[in-house]
């Protein structure tokens, strides 16, 4: 099943007199349980692609479908709602809220959904990421790798069907980076999610089912 699908999606920016084609017409799909990575030089359009998939911006033309829904054609507000339900973002600088403990980062999701917080469920998830003993710590008390794992926990907690990670390992040393990618890969398989990871580090792509290369706005599959 295709969880992510792009149909002839493009993105152009008007920059003064110049028009930048950050994303040339692209067809692209990610299946459930598939772990895809995108590599490519700086400024080639990787983040642009990811933010279009995540609905942070809309394509200039073409469509984005998430779970067979015309995501890119929704109203801003509905897109935010769907993003909250369907998509887990993991960013380079971790997306943790500084004044919440690891536990409260997760609890926030329950607060927004008006559901009850299940401590054992949270502990299970944190246990899988081996940070269950850090449950009452604030982000500032965590190491870079622990923060990134907490961010992954946050992204997985509300059980989204799609995970988008923009250079999730940029702030980590090689061992930690491999650990984080390993976790992402295992969670993708176990929970049947569609995961895209943008990275600069080609060595990390060995965990991925397929690798794409972005160059000057053109996405092509690496064989």
């Amino acid at each position, binding site marked *: 099943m295709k969880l992510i699908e792009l149909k002839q999606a493009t993105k152009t920016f008007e920059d003064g007199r110049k028009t930048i084609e950050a994303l040339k017409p692209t067809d692209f799909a990610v299946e459930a349980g598939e772990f895809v990575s995108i590599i490519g030089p700086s400024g080639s359009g990787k983040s642009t692609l990811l933010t279009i998939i995540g609905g942070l911006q809309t394509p200039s033309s073409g469509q984005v479908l998430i779970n067979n829904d015309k995501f890119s054609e929704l109203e801003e507000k509905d897109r935010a709602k769907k993003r909250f339900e369907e998509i887990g973002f993991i960013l380079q600088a971790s997306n943790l809220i*500084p004044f919440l403990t690891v536990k409260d980062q997760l609890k926030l999701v329950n607060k927004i959904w008006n559901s009850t917080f299940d401590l054992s469920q949270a502990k299970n998830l944190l246990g899988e990421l081996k940070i269950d003993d850090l449950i009452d710590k604030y982000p500032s008390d965590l190491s870079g790798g622990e923060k990134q794992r907490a961010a992954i926990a946050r992204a997985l907690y509300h059980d989204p069907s799609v995970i988008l990670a923009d250079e999730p390992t940029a702030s980590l040393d090689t061992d930690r980076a491999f650990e984080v990618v390993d976790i992402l890969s295992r969670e993708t398989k176990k929970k049947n999610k569609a995961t895209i990871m943008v990275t600069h580090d080609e060595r990390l792509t060995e965990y991925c089912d397929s690798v794409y290369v972005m160059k000057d706005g053109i996405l092509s599959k690496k064989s």
Partner: protein
Amino acid sequence: MFLAWREIRYSKTRFALIIGVVVLISYLVFFLTGLAYGLAQENRTSIDKWEADGIFLAEESNTNINMSMFPKDLLEEVNADETASLGVVSSVIEPNRETDEDAKVNATFFGISAEEFIMPDIIDGDAFGEDRQVVADRSLRDEDGYEVGDELSLSGMDLTLELVGFTEDSKFNVAPVLYTNHSTYQEIRASGFGQREDEIISAIVVRQENGDIEAVEQTTDELALYDIDEFINNLPGYNAQVLTFGLMIGFLVLIAAMIIGIFIYVLTLQKSSMLGVMKAQGISSAYIGRSVVGQTFILAAFGVLTGLILTLGTGLILPNAVPYMNNFIFLITITGLLISVAVTGAFFSVKTVVNIDPLEAID
């Protein structure tokens, strides 16, 4: 509220400082209100005590009771449910015995008839009976050390009065009132003008059923009837005082709200990249906005209530001479006003939240 509380708990010092500023400002506002109200009351408590509906003054007096003089006979020319004759004169009094301090006090004499309705209740000593006996406001006892039985002399007058009792809530034009009978009043008043044949009074105070002073009849054009509130508003200096304080308090409320609003705004700007991350995750502007408003409410409510408690506490330990007085309606109104105006200020920050672009969270 979840986010609002957690953030306050995490950045305790920062929020404690903001609450501290709110406390100080609201303390100032409340305290000033108490003083303004107390001072306003000192102009009028003796009048409020009458529970009257209207007052007749001499036609040409222009609502100034000090300039109003007419023969007591005119009492027969007016017809209301209840009437009371009143003579007003200011003087300076001093007890005849040795006192520690300078006990000279500016006072106002009210010449009244003991059987009419403006006769005050006595809380200490006795009512005046014979000529040259007076009953005074308790502030003379509490603040100036006068006692029942004191002999009082009047500045520039060869006249000795006997203080026989005290009443309460009797201030006129910020000075204590001394009540006496009409003949003593004539003596005090006449000493400045020379003896006159007629008994002269300053005003006729009236009560009318349902406060309907339109129904009061008069058969003389030498007197003009005023509504009691109009009379109070025209007391010399009263209106200017109330307006001045009112404006000051109003501006302070606005300034307090702006300060809270600016604090919250700066905090929101500081957090904008974090809020961008939250929005990128799909947390709605409405949820974040509610938490900003909720946080402002918490800060304002904490600060204002602490300020209120401080004010009430200060009111208890203030010396009697300070004209501070609590009016719970004012205190509650100002509490509500401060909090709601602060929360309104927070809506500017909500606008910022709405405008934050979640794209900024990437890179």
